[in-house]
């Protein structure tokens, strides 16, 4: 499925957070959004996922999801959002339980996503027993279980240490290679964006606007660990905004 954002603005009370955002994620494309803290990236993602409503403008999808898709727009959260009172297996089962599928099928889906995220041996564990990286794997497995057609990820790796996030980043790239989902990927990490984004959208500080869009043609699998030139280019775009945003008062979160 394709995701289209047309002239979307969002205000909270009097605070204009997003101003006239236009962007498109094509079928099978990963769009990375970067921007200074508080510029409204998470807000934009919640709007895309239908968890909040835009003050003006439209957000639409085009095309139909795969036939066995249970939840077309699916989130992977920065803080994992696992239920601590459910085991790994049961956390995944949670998102299947409201659908008319047999227990056998449910178990098959669970086993399959656990295997795809290298979690099979941890299926009976409590979330508190897992490391951060493992928890996020569960988050990813849970998202895969509903066979989403668009994955919405809000800094999925930023709560992890850099080695773990490197491993998970590679796993995400492998997953994309197999399933070719469409995705919006928010990050603060420029090199991460350059590794996993087909398109990088740079936002200005609040009120967030699209400042620049950069397309990267090279296939994900063939990219180098770092692309210093592009990183520098993006950082120059961001720097001023980031310095100003950091000095701003009253932009919590």
């Amino acid at each position, binding site marked *: 499925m394709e995701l289209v954002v047309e002239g979307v603005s969002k205000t909270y009370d009097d605070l204009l957070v997003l101003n006239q955002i236009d962007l498109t994620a094509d079928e099978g494309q990963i769009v990375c959004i970067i921007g200074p803290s508080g510029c409204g990236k998470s807000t934009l993602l919640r709007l895309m996922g239908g968890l909040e409503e835009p003050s003006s403008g439209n957000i639409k999808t085009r095309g139909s999801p795969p036939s066995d898709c249970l939840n077309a727009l699916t989130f992977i959260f920065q803080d994992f959002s696992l*239920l601590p009172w459910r085991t790994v297996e049961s956390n995944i089962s949670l998102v299947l339980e409201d659908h008319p599928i047999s227990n056998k099928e449910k178990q098959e889906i669970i086993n399959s996503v656990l295997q795809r995220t290298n979690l099979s041996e941890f299926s009976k564990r409590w979330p508190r027993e897992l490391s951060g990286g493992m928890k996020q794997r569960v988050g990813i497995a849970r998202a895969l279980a509903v066979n989403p057609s668009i994955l919405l990820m809000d800094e999925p790796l930023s709560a992890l240490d850099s080695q773990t996030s490197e491993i998970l980043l590679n796993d995400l790239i492998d997953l994309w290679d197999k399933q070719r989902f469409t995705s919006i990927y928010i990050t603060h990490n420029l090199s991460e964006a350059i590794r996993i984004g087909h398109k990088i959208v740079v936002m200005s500080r609040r009120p967030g606007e699209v400042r620049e869009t950069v397309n990267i043609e090279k296939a994900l699998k063939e990219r180098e660990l770092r692309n210093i030139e592009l990183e520098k280019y993006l950082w120059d775009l961001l720097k001023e905004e980031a310095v100003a945003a950091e000095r701003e008062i009253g932009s919590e979160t």
Partner: protein
Amino acid sequence: MKHKKNTFIKIPFRGSGFSYRKNYWISPVVFIVLIALWHLGSTLGFISKLVLPNPTEVVIAFHDLYVTGDLYLHVGASLKRLILGWTLGSILGIIIGFAIGLFSLVRAGLAPIVAAIFPIPKIALLPLFIIWFGIGELSKVNLILFGTLFPTIIATYGAIDNVDRSLIRMGQSFNLTWFSITKKIVFPASLPVILSNMRITAAIAIILIVAAELIAAEKGIGAYIQMAGSLFAIDRLLAGIIILSCMGLIANWLIGFTERKLLKWRNL
């Protein structure tokens, strides 16, 4: 700090203390020593019989209670009132608390009334309840029900207000039904607070039942203590108090047990 350049000094350990260590034998020893001192004091006459009888007499009072079947009678009467009132109060309180926590309309209607009734010392309602429900069981059960109900309502909706919103968002983002979110996310998330509140309401219930029985009852631990007091039978009075302590301990243990069963996801 003048040390020779080439001498090595072992770094002294200074991180001791201020930490909790488990000690299983201290408390029974303290307990036994205290009883022994009491016994010694009574036997030697340091402690007047009018103030505190010899512990052996308390044991005898217990024995009498058991042999005559009065133990069963009094404890049974109190327990029946306690269990009935506390269970009904807790169930109703949880239901109303959930209604207030989940529906704005119910909150707007009920929360102020609950807030107004909550601070009334419930024992003050006993005379009113006796007029309404008679001197029998009903007034006492209702008193405990009332005493349990309001703290439970307040704890329950407070717990619901504090459920991590990001988990609810997560549920919504996966299109879970309202009922699923309530049952699988809101309820388990508020359970720890609801259970720890049960410890408090159990204590409140015991206070209320004793107070009610002291004032108006023929059977029950409170009535037994009241009778012992009016006869200056301190041995029996103490036996009654020890029974109350045991009831509190058992209630506490039962709730702790339930917590360990239901909240095993929390700790190892």
